């Protein structure tokens, strides 16, 4: 389908974003890579009055390591982060998850912050940000506030962004020595929405499993390495309150949480013992 009509603002500077917010108020949406938003606009599921295009905003186009975190500005594409040579060392979980994010042709334009802002419960980047306990920096005319991932995601496609705010950057904590990271996902087709996605962060003392695609946002559970794995996984799978949809039943989702969780976690436990 074709979009409804809207005004378009090219924000080449951050100041332009504030001016556009002032002019259009709540009716304006930020457009970065457009790989989620434009599809929704074409379907007319989203009907913004104005789009504020930040894809050419040089002030938001940066990836850097700062204070133990990989910091990604709002205009940075997924391809740019995926192609970082040091990514496997810096944030190994991201390196494992990137190939599952849609397709080469989408990652070339889609932005990291855009996926976080879209907050699809089955998307890989919100899962990684939650699993690593990363942060989202929201900027408004009056300043900045920094939210932990689990404060930022508030529900299905819902976030803590308030009127007049936009995501300036997201911060992924760098790999910790001795920690192990794993990622896996099941989808109907390569690059399709995840039915279940899993991220494991295993430290010397505990295992953290984060699940996407089941609840209305990514959810993490932590337990000591010595825990009875099948029992904790089963409890976690039930607590996620999986729903059935026309493709997949709730019990299959629980099955994936149990079986893939078991496989990934056993793998890291074996690796760190040997």
């Amino acid at each position, binding site marked *: 389908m*074709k979009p409804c009509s809207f*005004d378009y603002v090219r924000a*080449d500077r951050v100041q332009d974003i504030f001016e556009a917010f002032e002019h259009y108020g709540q009716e304006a949406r930020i457009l970065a890579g457009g790989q989620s938003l434009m599809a929704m606009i*074409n379907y007319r599921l989203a009907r913004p009055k104005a*789009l504020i295009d930040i894809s050419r905003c040089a002030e938001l186009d940066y990836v850097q390591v700062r204070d133990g975190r990989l910091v990604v500005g709002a205009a940075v594409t997924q391809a740019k982060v995926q192609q970082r040579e040091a990514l496997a060392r810096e944030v190994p979980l991201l390196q494992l998850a990137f190939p599952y994010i849609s*397709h080469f*042709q989408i990652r070339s334009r889609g932005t990291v912050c855009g996926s976080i802002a879209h907050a699809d419960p089955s998307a890989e980047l919100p899962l990684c940000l939650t699993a690593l306990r990363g942060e989202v920096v929201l900027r408004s005319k009056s300043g900045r506030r920094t939210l932990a991932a689990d404060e930022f995601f508030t529900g299905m496609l819902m976030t803590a962004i308030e009127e007049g705010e936009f995501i300036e950057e997201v911060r992924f904590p760098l790999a910790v020595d001795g920690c192990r990271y794993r990622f896996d996902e099941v989808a109907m087709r*390569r690059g399709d929405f995840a039915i279940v996605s899993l991220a494991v962060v295993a430290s010397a003392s505990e295992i953290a499993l984060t699940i996407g695609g089941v609840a209305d946002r990514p959810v993490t559970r932590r337990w000591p390495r010595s825990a009875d794995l099948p029992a904790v996984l089963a409890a976690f799978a039930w607590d996620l309150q999986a729903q059935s949809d026309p493709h997949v039943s709730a019990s299959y989702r629980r099955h994936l949480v149990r079986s893939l969780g078991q496989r990934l976690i056993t793998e890291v436990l074996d690796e760190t013992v040997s």
Partner: protein
Amino acid sequence: MKPYRSDTPHAIGLTLNGRQVSGQAAPRMLLSDFLRHVLGATGVHVGCEHGVCGACTVQVDGVPARSCLMLAVQAEGRSIETVEGLNRDCAVELTDLQQAFKDHHALQCGFCTAGILMSCDAYLKQFPCPDEDQLRDMLSGHLCRCTGYTNIVRALQAVVAQRNGIKQEEDENVRSGS
């Protein structure tokens, strides 16, 4: 701040296949429609209009992109390549990539082909020696209902082998001083 009002057409200037062109578009016009209906680049095929099928894939500043997920106004000042421009710098009618698609019967109805060629062209520049798994992963961003993809993979493997063969030959010639 440079607003484009929704109810008025705006002049959009861009480079299309190496040529400076311009046309009028209101903000809601998709790049795919702008390329086809305003600039006449009908090699851009429109399938699903929500980014899934890949038929409308073009290159924006050398990077593959769904033209249905981009607005015409966003293309202002950009360099856009469509399938019409593929053989621009090539003395023969078809590029090696296009010829390989023909030789290996990598298309039937051809609807998806223009987009696939634009993806493959960009991908092989970035990754000159992909294996079959990598090629299939890249092709997962396109839907083709005729070929079952096998012949597309074969065509791409032939191009990779040929390009790398030419490179190797030149390297050997340089080394042996001939």
